């Protein structure tokens, strides 16, 4: 198929940036979206133009590196996947596709479609851990039984890949789903209960400091989340926060 691409180009953090139009031809429907971008980049290099910078790594939907806003949606029109798992069969011959970086003031653009997600790192550093020494001298793994129900819920929350689609798709650029996922993972496990109060307070404080917007429960994050993390986790975060502060 043949496609028209409108892609955000920005030389660096200081550059204003603009949309640039490109044409690609003979795209196979079995290609992944990023393979289509590879084809475009190969052709740009051949023409002595600068290829389009975009983040990607594992290309199997788990590292959370890829981050494109495609036709106004984080990770494109398909559900439950990252951009690298999006296939061109989702598009039709002759389509125009808008490709932009994930946008939020807390995610400044580094170049073209690459954004800086260090804000997420700082939130994790503020409390996204259980303070246990890595000595291996902990108690036996089976000494605390954990109900399968809670273990499964914890796993669901823990499957967050930190890609930032929640922020990108939220009209308020809120990072609540990301923070909620980490807080929930630990809140649901006995090991995490010890530091639960400090954890939720510190992580929320850091989240606010980074300049993310406020959650208004639109639910966009849950729909766009490649791992389908539920906004029930946000309710749990609210609850944990209230419990920690009252």
């Amino acid at each position, binding site marked *: 198929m043949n496609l028209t691409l409108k892609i955000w180009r920005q030389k660096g953090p200081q550059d204003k940036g603009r949309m640039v139009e490109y044409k690609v031809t003979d795209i196979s429907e079995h290609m992944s979206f990023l393979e289509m971008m590879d084809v475009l980049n190969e052709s740009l290099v051949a023409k002595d133009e600068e290829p389009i910078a975009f983040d990607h790594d594992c290309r199997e939907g788990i590292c959370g590196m890829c981050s494109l806003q495609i036709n106004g949606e984080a990770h494109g029109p398909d559900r439950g996947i990252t951009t690298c798992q999006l296939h061109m069969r989702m598009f039709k011959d002759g389509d125009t596709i808008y490709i932009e970086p994930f946008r939020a003031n807390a995610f400044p653009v580094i170049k073209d479609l690459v954004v800086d997600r260090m804000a997420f790192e700082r939130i994790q550093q503020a409390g996204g851990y259980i303070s246990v020494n890595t000595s291996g001298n902990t108690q036996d793994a*089976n000494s605390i039984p954990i109900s399968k129900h809670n273990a499964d819920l914890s796993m669901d929350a823990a499957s967050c890949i930190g890609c930032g689609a929640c922020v990108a798709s939220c009209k308020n650029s809120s990072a609540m789903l990301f923070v909620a996922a980490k807080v929930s993972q630990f809140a649901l496990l006995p090991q995490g209960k010890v530091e639960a109060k400090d954890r939720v307070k510190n992580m929320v404080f850091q989240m606010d400091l980074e300049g993310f917007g406020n959650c208004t429960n639109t639910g966009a994050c849950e729909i766009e989340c490649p791992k389908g993390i539920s906004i029930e986790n946000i309710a749990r975060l609210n609850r944990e926060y209230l419990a920690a502060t009252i």
Partner: protein
Amino acid sequence: MTTLNSRIPEGPIKDKWTLYKDKINLVNPANKRNIDIIVIGTGLAGGSAAATLAELGYSVKAFAYQDSPRRAHSIAAQGGINASKNYMGDGDSNYRLFYDTVKGGDYRSREANVYRLAEVSGNIIDQCVAQGVPFARDYGGLLDNRSFGGVLVSRTFYAKGQTGQQLLLGAYSAMNRQIARGKIEMFNRHEMLDVVKIDGKARGIIARNLVTGEIERHSAHAVVIATGGYGNVYFLSTNAMGSNATAAWKIHKKGAFFANPCFTQIHPTCIPRSGDYQSKLTLMSESLRNDGRIWVPAKLEDAKAIQQKKLKPIQIAEENRDYFLERRYPAFGNLVPRDVASRAAKERCDAGFGVNATGEAVYLDFAAAIKRYGTEQAKIKGIHDASIEKITELGAAVIEEKYGNLFQMYEKIIDENPYKTPMMIYPATHYTMGGVWVDYNLMTTVPGLYCIGEANFSDHGANRLGASALMQGLADGYFVLPYTIGDYLADDIRTGKIKTDSPEFDEAEESVKKQLKFFIENKGTHTVDYYHKRLGQVMWDKVGMARNEKGLKEAIVEIQEIREDFWKNVKVPGSLNEFNQELEKAGRVADFLELGELFAKDALEREESCGGHFREEHVTEDGEAKRDDVNFAHVSVWEYTGKPSEAILHKEQLEFKDIELKTRSYK
């Protein structure tokens, strides 16, 4: 000339590690904070090492080429992690895990290292649970296990199909705790481009800030390389796009010997290739072989019809299917080790029985498992005369619970529903058992330079068992290196800060800058990927699943030609001092082009078939690998002397005192 000293401690194998730890030199806590350690790579091995070293009190600088340690490719490991906990009560023990690993590795790994690995495996699970890793549990609230290829017990702990992710996030959280305390200084989006040696010891690195392009100098008392394997030498592999061998190769060129490069694992269950544009291959976890049955049509005409899409797999009657693993290996069936399964699939496809348009795919069928689970569920739920539809529905739900994310991933890529029609799979490069040679302390042949995780060679011999990579990465990082590094650093407490203005740093920085400048100024005719794909093609065709003398000799010549062409005609756009992904790739491919040659040379030199290394000249009468323990029960350790072709071979003889050398049989 350096002689290889593996520093294996004396004593019976069961006590080696304990006795060794008792006598090892330690660094006093007050001195630790004056000692800097650089850790390159923040996957399971690097991340857990960085966190533990920081916790012990060392000042750690950690480097990752991605924007966060959480993105390292350990995250993609799906199936699980082994540990000899014997929670299932099925007769597991440290010895059995040790035995399975050595046997699975086709008797080409170092006994002492493997035993230590088995010994600390249980600690890993305890540690991870304490960190909040949400492993799968049964209804009683206790940890669940499943079985993996090549073993007869269930010892694999898992977190859905995302075990690697959860373990990495555990190590990452331990790192975050130390980053917040200032004990780890984290350098994201930085790539190590060379190691700096002063007086023969590793004392620092040269790194490029990938955002600004700035070349930086970092000094330390010891350097730890934890940068994973070199599977991307094949271009197409299950590795991440950025996975590279640059750190490992650069230290090789600075004096660290490289061991067994030809031991590469081709994983049997990957999604087949669909076209030339393909950028990577996607793995389907080995755990699928617990429930999936692998088959191809028994009749050639059926296979042809399927290849031309005239026939669907479900139309082929049971008696016309060839469940070739069950046929050839009745004892282990679909759960034979990876190398065996991969070769068997290749053998069928080469004979024309492949099941997709390219003829390079076999079926992985869940219909039997769905039926079995469905019947079981119907019984549990008290449905007596359940219809076939109901049984299928119930069975599919069980399969979804176990492998839901894998099935979804498959469907997104192939656009077929694997609950209804069998999956198509084909082997793909997955893991490299070979790597930088290390001694029992995990130190390379360069003093103060360590190598852990997939990047080293030590534990998996010629073939790695499923769910053992995560185990090794975490064992090295959490429980081995933090002890053994103290033995070396104990002599460094009076050294003081290492200065970065020495001539050694000047020289290393100069050579790094020279290479980068060359790429930008070369203005050649072909992109980096063009060369990488060419290299990959040669590697796959001639140094792939089956190798022979003629092919390997050709491969060496061809790789040399590609390399020559690369250095003449490569084209890298953009400039030095900016975010430049093509420039990053150029350096990595340059290193692969050298490593690939050493790889082929090693494969040529190893005149036997063992594990992942299969030489067509060395087969038994029924087509199985034929090992040569008289001449090749050694680690091939290569010393760099200026060119891969001129590398000098050293041999570390492997001694098997606790396990009898036997022909590996899974029949």
